[in-house]
């Protein structure tokens, strides 16, 4: 049963659960009127638990489902979500998510990658704006300073994304540390399996 262990049934079931967590994080953040999205908690958690590939699948599937059911806009950002999953997964595999310093490093890197990928998408589709009040205020300021649209859009996205990813990863870090080993080992594919029959 070891073939395709990285996509075992447990991992496959983890993906919809994490998409649900993304949804809950977003709706809690909205219910509490927090100035953040917090809609990638599940993606980051999946990446920590099962590695970068599953993180990427989870992120892309997440946006695909929202795009095809609730808001078409999120379809555009499937690429960003997948990239966040990859970055967090790689850093978690390297053991960065075991201590707070590594978690902060992970969050900043994930935020930067999200900004770098989202900015061209924003420019192509919406002329560089994000639809977030704070970010668009920065965008307006930067454009008024005669900065190029690309840089203005970069600032726009950065103001929103980096604090959001820092908050997200810190929440994930807190939850990930508290999970029992019996649960986390379920999704790990790089563990050696001892066989008694050999």
């Amino acid at each position: 049963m070891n073939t395709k262990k990285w996509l075992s049934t447990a991992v496959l079931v983890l993906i919809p659960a994490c998409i649900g967590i993304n949804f809950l994080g977003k709706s809690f953040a909205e219910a509490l009127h927090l100035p953040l999205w917090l809609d990638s908690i599940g993606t980051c958690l999946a990446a920590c638990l099962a590695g970068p590939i599953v993180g990427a699948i989870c992120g892309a599937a997440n946006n695909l489902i929202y795009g095809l059911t609730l808001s078409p806009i999120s379809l555009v950002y499937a690429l960003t979500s997948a990239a966040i999953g990859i970055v967090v997964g790689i850093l978690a595999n390297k053991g960065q998510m075991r201590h707070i310093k590594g978690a902060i490093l992970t969050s900043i890197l994930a935020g930067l990658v999200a900004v770098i990928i989202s900015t061209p998408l924003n420019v192509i589709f919406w002329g560089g704006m994000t639809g977030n009040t704070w970010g668009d205020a920065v965008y307006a300021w930067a454009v008024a300073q005669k900065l190029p649209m690309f840089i203005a859009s970069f600032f726009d996205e950065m103001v929103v994304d980096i604090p959001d990813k820092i908050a997200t990863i810190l929440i994930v870090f807190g939850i990930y540390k508290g999970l029992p080993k019996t649960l986390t080992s379920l999704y790990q594919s790089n563990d050696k399996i001892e066989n008694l029959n050999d």
Partner: protein
Amino acid sequence: MKSITLYEYKNSFLNHIDPFCKLLYILAALSIPLILGVSVTKLIFIAISIFLIISNKVFKKVIPLFTFSAIIILTAIIIQGLFYSNNKHIILQLGPLKFYKEGLLFAYHIALNVLNILLSFAVLIFTTKPTDLIDSFVRVGFSPRFGYVLSSVFQIIPQMSETMSTISDAQKSRGMESEGNLFTRIKAFFPLISPVITSSLINTRERAIALEVRGFNSTTKKTFLNQQTRTRKDKIINIILLLLIILSSIWRIITCLK
């Protein structure tokens, strides 16, 4: 249980059309304006989408999408009209605010883009059951395991939202404050989200066992619960849409060669 989808069965024309036709329509609505490079085509597709939405009786449900896009369009008009980098000609002056022609034109293009994308997707989203859409993907060769992953999201999210309201009631009854200043609200986030996450992760283990017991990993060919109903109408629509995309590409190539 509350469903998260926007789909509603109205026994309308689009309800009985193959999901692939509607996907092809989205492709046409987004690619043809891009291929031709003429913004009038976007207007035409917006008009077609609105017509399809109204004639399929889902217009009321689409209105929230309009308000959402109105916010984007309004900020685009204000920001680009005032500050767009190529602004030269003043067109409108309101007190100290000067709106420029170039910026407003740019905002107009953004507005067309936003409306075209939103409305063409609305044609699909409001008239197609998500599980049908996933079914038709699996039929053309998409992995059924992934098909399960996608369609189970629609079962899991309503379940989780119920857990979410149970937990927020439980925590409130223990004295958790969920209103007040930003700090109190941030503090309230953790006791709300962590029990849901842990419980849903524990649930995944049981779900995985339940699936494997029922032969989820079996390699035999999977069958479908519902039969596919692809009619001649679907084929005709598909052919027309494909022809439109091909013709516009040919037209563009010819005009480029001239």
